[in-house]
């Protein structure tokens, strides 16, 4: 595609030409040749094939291991096609091709979702703050928007500058999505390359979205000490009218808070949020707004009957929310055309009329695309509705739980429907005898999806029973979370960059993604604390950042109170909502740029190669569920950052696994000499679904290892790897692949010297040289050799 460099800014008051007439128009046509000190890099605005070479390098090392979630294809009327084993569909496609095609499709949904969110923010915020509003992300952030700079070669200065970036992302998503059409791409490796492309585009979209809201809405700007706010099912003052906001787009929620402030009644109404809108409304308001919990807390909270008005914006909304609201006598206000939920549109009616309609029950909710109006309607409705709903804010009585449990025949239909395969019948059995522990156990792991209720032949409201049995305790709990801080400061990067690259800081571990947790929320804080104690830098976002808050140590402190919010070893850093994931990728890029002085501008391959070979960062998306999560992960892969998902993540249809025993896969160039040398299986995998928390932690420690580690750095990383391994498998055990990870004797961790040496001797280990300047790219070799001459 052509580079959209055809924009420029001017103000025209009046201009007549034979063809046209212009009056008072602000034309914005930025980025013709702009004054960014850095020269243009090799790949501005890359299209699908521009970085294909890099993708193929990665994919030849990290080969997809396909885990077909379905052996069929049902995408066109030539199907369904049976693709099992070596069969192909009517269009010629094989099973591996189809799996990667579906991943591409899934990622295009994910990337579209983010860029469409960014586009909406752009339009609303530019309208409110003008195109010229500066992108100021904090005084300590001079390298703003590193992803955008890296990918597009554009250095945006004002909100308006972001338009060509959005144009680019949208266009490329559409191009890439087209490749999914029947009879287009025919090879898995190229579909995987497209997945990477979509992931990279997704990261740009994330960054644009968060930069827009941080810059315009005055979110915390790279503030390591952003305030602590309340989180939990128990945060809400039930006596007040309650407005629950759900989704990912902060504008409608922000409008509610603004309206309440304007009316001087902020204290009279509770505004609480679920999912990313919750993150962002606390970033916006910083104090009063409250977080109920992650995505899967929706029915857990709604079914308490507490919310009076539910305002939904976009993404991660329980799609049967209108019906769920109706059941508790609440109303729903939808605020975007992407999620209308069948509600009648009331964007043009007067707020009073709409409030009246809602209160009368004539409509179960309304679609109001004007967010100020939506806010007014929400507040007025909540104020009037709350007093009438007080009695609805109660739950199933506890004695009913036992009664229902007694009705259970243990047919296990509910278990067969449960995505978590939870032992419901067993718990019902205990409950029928008055023992609710089984149900409480289930509550922790249940994500309130309601699938059990549809299938019970005894019509037991299974989810309600679970919620009631266990909810009492939970629904009074309150935790503290540090408000999402946004970007990482350049100064913080400078402080840790060297130690990360040399390996003295064992790694950066990022907890991201949704709430599809096998064991409930608890795994995430346990892992986060372990790594913080081990002086990794821990970052978090989205539902995972919330999960980290849902844990108290012996002193009753949550990890956000226990650890610093700085991007430093032992810190636990909440960057913010899902779109703030961009700051995690951004931090990694900034290490390459600020510490290593690698050119940033449109220099994707070199930077990704640098990251893969030197920066020990790993993402853990323990409950990754959505198409967005898939896109985010893909963006990290192309950038050279491995991602671990939880056991449900295996449903993403394939892993990207290296093979430690395939020696030839681990050769790379020594840029200093141009020789191809063995670099070891590091990082071993790009995408990995772990079965258990223990496995994930060991794997995360291992995936932080990089070819460029100094001996001291490698020894530190191995110390963590070995000690985690021992912690789980016994102090007499050693990981069986140490010989592949230890290059020379100086890599050997002092603590475990003797037994490691013994092991190495047993397996006939021999030294191999370590490389200080490893790369997978001939271009980098050429460049370095040229510099040296």
């Amino acid at each position: 595609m052509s580079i959209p460099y055809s924009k420029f800014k001017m103000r025209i008051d009046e201009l007549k030409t034979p063809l046209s007439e212009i009056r008072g128009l602000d034309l914005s046509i930025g980025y013709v040749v702009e004054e960014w000190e850095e020269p243009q890099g090799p790949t501005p605005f890359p299209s699908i094939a521009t970085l294909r070479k890099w993708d193929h390098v990665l994919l030849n090392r990290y080969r997809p291991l396909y885990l077909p979630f379905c052996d069929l294809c049902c995408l066109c009327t030539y199907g369904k096609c049976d693709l099992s084993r070596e069969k192909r569909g009517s269009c010629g496609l094989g099973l591996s091709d189809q799996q990667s095609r579906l991943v591409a499709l899934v990622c295009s949904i994910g990337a579209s979702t983010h860029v469409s969110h960014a586009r909406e923010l752009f339009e609303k915020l530019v309208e409110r703050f003008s195109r010229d509003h500066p992108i100021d992300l904090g005084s300590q952030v001079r390298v703003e928007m590193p992803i955008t700079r890296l990918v597009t070669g554009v250095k945006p200065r004002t909100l308006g500058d972001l338009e060509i970036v959005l144009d680019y992302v949208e266009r490329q998503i559409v191009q890439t999505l087209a490749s999914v059409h029947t009879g287009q791409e025919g090879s898995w490796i190229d579909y995987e390359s497209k997945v990477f492309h979509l992931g990279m585009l997704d990261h740009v979209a994330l960054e644009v979205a968060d930069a827009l809201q941080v810059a315009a809405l005055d979110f915390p700007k790279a503030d390591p000490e952003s305030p602590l706010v309340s989180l939990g099912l128990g945060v809400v003052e039930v006596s007040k009218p309650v407005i629950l906001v759900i989704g990912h787009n902060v504008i409608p929620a922000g409008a509610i808070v603004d309206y309440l402030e304007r009316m001087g009644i902020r204290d009279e109404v509770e505004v609480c949020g679920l999912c990313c809108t919750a993150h962002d409304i606390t970033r916006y308001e910083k104090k009063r707004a409250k977080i109920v919990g992650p995505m899967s807390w929706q029915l857990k909270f709604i079914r308490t009957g507490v919310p009076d008005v539910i305002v939904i914006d976009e993404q991660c909304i329980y799609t049967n929310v209108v019906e769920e609201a109706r059941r508790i006598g609440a109303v729903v206000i939808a605020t975007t055309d992407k999620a209308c939920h069948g509600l009648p549109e009331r964007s043009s009616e007067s707020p009073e009329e709409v409030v009246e309609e809602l209160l009368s029950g004539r409509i179960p909710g309304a679609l109001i695309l004007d967010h100020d109006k939506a806010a007014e309607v929400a507040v007025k409705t909540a104020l009037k509705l709350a007093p009438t709903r007080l009695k609805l804010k109660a739950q199933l009585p506890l004695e009913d739980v036992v009664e229902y449990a007694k009705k259970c025949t243990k047919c296990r239909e509910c278990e067969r429907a449960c995505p978590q395969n939870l032992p419901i019948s067993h718990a019902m059995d205990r409950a029928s005898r008055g023992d609710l522990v089984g149900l409480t156990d289930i509550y922790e792991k249940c994500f309130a999806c309601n699938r059990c209720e549809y299938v019970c032949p005894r019509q037991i409201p299974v989810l309600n029973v679970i919620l009631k049995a266990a909810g009492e305790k939970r629904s009074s709990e309150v935790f503290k979370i540090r408000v999402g801080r946004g970007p990482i400061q350049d100064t913080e990067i400078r402080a840790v960059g060297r130690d990360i690259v040399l390996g003295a800081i064992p790694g950066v571990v990022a907890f991201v993604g949704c709430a599809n947790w096998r064991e409930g929320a608890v795994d995430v804080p346990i892992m986060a604390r372990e790594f913080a104690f081990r002086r990794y830098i821990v970052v978090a976002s989205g539902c995972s950042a919330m999960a980290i808050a849902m844990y108290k140590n012996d002193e009753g402190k949550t990890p956000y109170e226990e650890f610093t919010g700085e991007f430093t070893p032992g810190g636990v850093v909440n960057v913010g909502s899902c779109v703030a994931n961009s700051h995690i990728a951004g931090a990694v890029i900034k290490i390459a740029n600020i510490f290593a002085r690698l050119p940033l501008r449109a220099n994707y391959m070199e930077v990704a190669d640098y990251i893969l070979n030197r920066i020990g960062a790993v993402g853990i998306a323990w409950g990754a569920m959505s198409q967005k999560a898939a896109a985010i992960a893909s963006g990290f892969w192309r950038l050279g950052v491995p991602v671990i998902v939880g056991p449900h993540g295996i449903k993403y249809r394939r892993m990207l696994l290296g093979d430690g025993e395939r020696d030839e896969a681990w050769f790379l160039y020594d840029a200093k000499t141009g020789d191809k040398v063995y670099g070891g299986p590091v990082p071993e995998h790009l995408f990995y679904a772990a079965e258990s928390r223990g496995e994930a932690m060991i794997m995360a420690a291992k995936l932080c290892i990089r070819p460029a580690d100094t001996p001291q750095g490698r020894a530190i990383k191995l110390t963590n790897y070995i000690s985690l391994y021992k912690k789980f498998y016994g102090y007499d055990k050693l990981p069986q692949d140490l010989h592949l990870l230890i290059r020379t004797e100086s890599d050997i961790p002092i603590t475990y010297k003797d037994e490691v040496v013994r092991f190495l001797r047993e397996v006939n280990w021999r030294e191999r040289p370590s490389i200080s300047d490893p790369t997978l790219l001939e271009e980098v070799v050429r460049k370095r050799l040229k510099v040296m001459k």
Partner: protein
Amino acid sequence: MSVEYWLRGEIPQPLKATVITDVKVLGGRIKQHKKPVILLGSELYRLERIVSSDIVATIVDIANAVKADLTTSSSDVVQRLDSMGFKRYRVGFPMSVVQKLARDREYDLAIFIGFQYHYEWLLLNYLKHYAYRHLNTLSLEPYGHPNATWTMPSLPIPLWHKNLLALTEVLKT
């Protein structure tokens, strides 16, 4: 329920496991193989809790009877194998284990027990499509597993446990 696969939302694929309800037949199938390996999942303890019985010990019996290797990533299982003095096991992460199973042709039968339903479902599906030329798979879960070559049926857990013990006896003889 018995010859149905477990989850309602997991429609069996075009290639479906043979459900084996008779433990004798099951034993026969296992014995036909020269080099079996048993993968123990990290959710075994959930089953143990329900039947209040040491299933790891049962599996060790099976492994001894048919000279199978064991592999697991569960710390709990590892500890117990150690305490039983069982040696023929490796600590292996399931994802890497199946990768090797497909690549190395070291084993001709992979037996699964104690995994999360979906996780195993997909591991089995990888092996079904990409390792079928040299490897059969068998699920000993209480949930019928469509992507295996052979599977025990979906059964109430106590019944399943009885079958498992019976299988051990069959294999020992």
